[in-house]
């Protein structure tokens, strides 16, 4: 079974803090994603990585950056957290190929910025 793990289930940070969300997958997947999930808005793609050190902006990249130094690990960075970044953050991974593919999701990190 593919396993995608996220470093924290719950996180509380203060406005202006730098925040790191870590994601690790154990199936040697090339593609990794970071989404945020908000009520009524579904899942929105923040960043996507298709290989080590390769990244591409999603629909809502403002205020975020990412790092992929190793194939299994994809980090989401909030350089200066703000209250409007309070949300559920979901990481996913998938193999390359046709279509959108079966994405395997982690359990999510619920981030609260005070």
């Amino acid at each position, binding site marked *: 079974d593919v396993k*995608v793990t996220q470093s924290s289930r719950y996180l509380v940070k203060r406005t202006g803090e730098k925040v790191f969300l870590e994601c690790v997958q154990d199936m040697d997947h090339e*593609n990794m*994603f970071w*989404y945020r999930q908000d009520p*009524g*808005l*579904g*899942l*929105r*793609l923040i960043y*996507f990585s*298709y290989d080590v050190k*390769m990244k*591409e*902006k*999603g*629909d809502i990249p403002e205020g975020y950056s990412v790092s992929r130094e190793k194939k299994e690990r994809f980090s989401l960075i909030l350089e200066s957290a703000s209250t409007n970044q309070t949300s559920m953050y*979901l990481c*996913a991974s*998938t193999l*390359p*190929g*046709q*279509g*959108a*593919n*079966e*994405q*395997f*999701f*982690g*359990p*999510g990190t619920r981030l609260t910025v005070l």
Partner: protein
Amino acid sequence: LAKTTQPISMDSYEGQEVNITCSHNNIATNDYITWYQQFPSQGPRFIIQGYKTKVTNEVASLFIPADRKSSTLSLPRVSLSDTAVYYCLVGLLSSGSARQLTFGSGTQLTVLP
């Protein structure tokens, strides 16, 4: 970007067949349609994916008409454990680009005893 629209919520009774429709009027030629299920405090889980006509697996069927402007997820004989949020995802994951991936806002399915 293919915008997707789903009903916000649906109720059903145990043992019934449930059909959830997603509208995606501006779907692109190469886009695929994928459905996910999400339980509280968990990440979404893949259910089924299709490109056209009908796809069936052990848990669901996906019906896609010829114009591909909508798709219908069909869950046969639902049980209480099928109570969850169901998401429609339309797009294409091509090498180096995932910007076309668009999730719907989700349909809360509640199965009643």
